[in-house]
């Protein structure tokens, strides 16, 4: 009964969409990279760097949109590093990705300590306020859930539409899908495999960083160590869950976020008094694994994912 009440409440769905927003950005970022044939395990670190950069830019006096832009740029910079190492040099995508995560995380913490040496509790910023959409936000259930959110959440949904449109309706998207399937097909048609892949990794990494920035600029209003807390890894699973398709991945992000919102609320019900809280924390992950197994069985993996392309090699 209580679960039903929760599922029918607008505040629950509003929370789910809010929790989903950073995942949506980062999942779209990972999806772009993987569609081009590059697994980007730098995602976790890039989100941390994005979270710090966006927050610190605003703390240092920049307007909020400029903070988002800064996060995007720092993400693209790490993407350029990842892309250079994995595409022209053809290094192992696993090793490079984990290296980028470690580098981005450590650089972020180091910079934080340098910039704020005296601070014991992290300063707060004036974050994005909710932008209720006129008329639509007055609708029952859907209104508060979807149309009374932070502008960054709207941007997240717009990003999904933009990624889907680009992939399927533009020549660039066609080339991107081809380069992740058979890079030789792209080269034989006179396009640059290296350029497309590095570009995709940079764009994708930029989106990951914006996902991180959502946490500091629209959710917690401050920066803590460990705040990304494995969200990047979840996004890698969400891309698989979504079978490398933007809209299906969006669905996965919302589903995961709904599980997460649900477990927080269940902890506060009488059941929560009897069950250890770790079980609730585990729930979204366990359910995600289950959903992954059910959903991804017939997924079509980009055939050239994780395969470096060496021009002229037989």
């Amino acid at each position, binding site marked *: 009964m209580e679960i039903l009440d929760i599922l029918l409440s607008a505040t629950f769905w509003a929370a789910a969409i809010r929790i989903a927003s950073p995942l949506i950005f980062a999942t779209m970022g990972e999806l772009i990279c993987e569609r081009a044939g590059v697994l980007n395990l730098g995602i976790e670190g890039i989100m941390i760097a994005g979270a710090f950069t966006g927050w610190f830019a605003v703390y240092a006096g920049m307007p909020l949109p400029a903070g988002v832009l800064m996060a995007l740029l720092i993400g693209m910079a790490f993407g350029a590093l990842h892309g250079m190492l994995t595409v022209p040099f053809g290094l192992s995508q696993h090793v490079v990705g984990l290296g980028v995560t470690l580098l981005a995380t450590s650089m972020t913490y180091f910079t934080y300590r340098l910039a704020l040496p005296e601070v014991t509790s992290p300063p707060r910023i004036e974050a994005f306020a909710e932008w209720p959409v006129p008329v639509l936000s007055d609708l029952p259930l859907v209104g508060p859930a979807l149309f009374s959110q932070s502008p960054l959440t709207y941007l997240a949904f717009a990003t999904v539409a933009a990624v889907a449109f680009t992939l399927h*309706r*533009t*020549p*660039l998207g*066609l*080339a991107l*899908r*081809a380069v992740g*399937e*058979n890079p*030789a*097909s*792209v*080269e*034989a*048609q*006179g*396009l640059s495999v290296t350029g497309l892949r590095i570009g995709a990794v940079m764009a994708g990494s930029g989106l990951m960083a914006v996902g991180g920035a959502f946490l500091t600029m629209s959710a917690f209003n401050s920066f803590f160590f460990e705040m990304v807390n494995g969200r990047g890894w979840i996004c890698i699973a969400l891309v698989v869950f979504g079978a490398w398709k933007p809209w299906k991945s969006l669905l996965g992000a919302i589903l995961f976020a709904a599980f997460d919102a649900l477990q927080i609320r269940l902890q506060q019900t009488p059941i929560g008094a009897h069950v250890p809280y770790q079980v609730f924390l585990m729930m979204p992950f366990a359910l995600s694994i289950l959903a992954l197994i059910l959903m991804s069985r017939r997924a*079509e993996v*980009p*055939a050239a994912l994780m395969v470096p392309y060496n*021009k*002229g*090699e*037989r």
Partner: protein
Amino acid sequence: MGGQAQARAVLRLSGITKRFGSLVANDAITFDLHEGEVIALLGENGAGKTTLMNILFGHYSADEGSVKLFGAPLPPGNPRAALAAGVGMVHQHFTLADNLTVTENITLGTEPLWRMGRSRAAARKRVEDLSRDFGLAVHPDARVGNLSVGERQRVEILKALYRDARILILDEPTAVLTPQEADDLFATLKKAVARGMSVIFISHKLHEVMAISSRVLVLRHGKLVGEVRTADTDKHQLATMMVGAEVAELEVRPHAPGPVLLALKGVSTPARGNVTGLRNVTLDLRAGQITGLAGVSGNGQAALAALIGGLELPDKGEMTLDGASVEGWSPRQAVDAGVARIPEDRHTTGTVADFTLTENAILESYGDAKFSRKGWMDWRAAEGFAQDIIARYDVRCPGPATRIRLLSGGNMQKLILGRVLERGPKIILANQPVRGLDIGAVTYVHQRLLQARDESAAVLLISEDLDEVMALSDVIHVISEGRLSPGFARGAMTPAQLGVWMAGHGFERSDHAA
């Protein structure tokens, strides 16, 4: 065609040289291609045909020399420039993205990347028109992953036509086609040539070269060794030029068969995925005899090869080896029992691409006392073994430390032959042993198989090439839908009679007999 002399040179290669390490793949190659002409580039495996065309298309840069297209120099190493200058290339290994449709593959890279939309309707219409005009039947909206090999090749040709290519390069285009599809391809090429297209046709099939080309260039060991007008030559002369010596006719001496080494009695195996299983198959493999298996691809050949190679066990029926029933059976046990396996696909199952020749040479025998003691490899012995094979089987390569992926198909196959024959096998499972090889290598492989037969091995030759089966086999069985015909002695059946069995007729009667 007429007026060869006046026809404009559309392509001029001057002094092209390309080296890979110590190997000179192309050595100062110079020739012209004229408008509306089909030239054939003929040569053995590793002669440098594909390298030369990859330089022309811009996949590689030449170390020396220059390429001129329509009088203008072509910047090296840039496929985009080659495409823009009107060169279209149909690679031996197709360059298509399986997840895209036919039209998407064709239009890929033809529009500026940063446009907001694609002109899909117009592109689709043009693909349809071209495919109708040139007789290249393929549905513009079909996903390439679902197409047959023949259809994929049509997509590759459409890619070139869509970009208004003036020069078309085809690298071994018929290697993957059925005879009927090859005829269709030739018809398409003739249409294109009639409209002013110039074609470079790379092949080692002499009858095709004779049929389609007006001029033949012969490459040997990276050098251009001959140029003849097709009208002034014949197959025998071309073969001699290609190999560099008189090509020996294959001589098959009769040989008395020995005892049955491996027998199948009423064996059935399960169907796995697209692999047809065997149905009630009875077969004797005798020492000193080549047993040929004729049939259209996909009729159970793979299942039979898996069974004898140790990858599969009978569901029903009995398999006996030297008269004893086979109980446990695995690839290891098959190798230990003296089964030599020449796999159908030398790239994926015959070799490990990134291993060296030495490592590939001992893939089946690394555990022998010769190569390892108490679990420690003796690499010196292994390398000596590889050196032996390289010398005795004429494997052309820089040395035993070369990664095998750098070898041509023929040289790879010679290494595989050496690997299995040096063990003195009792049973040889030769599955498509000469597919994709040129005359020299084909003759070589056939001679080695005959020699093994004369040394009392039982050879099972599986081939889709009926001529090959008929030339080599002492006994021929036909396989169709997993069923096996009775054995026919050499010369007992005409190709047409075997064709009837291949089409699946005649089995009912033998089922009753069995």
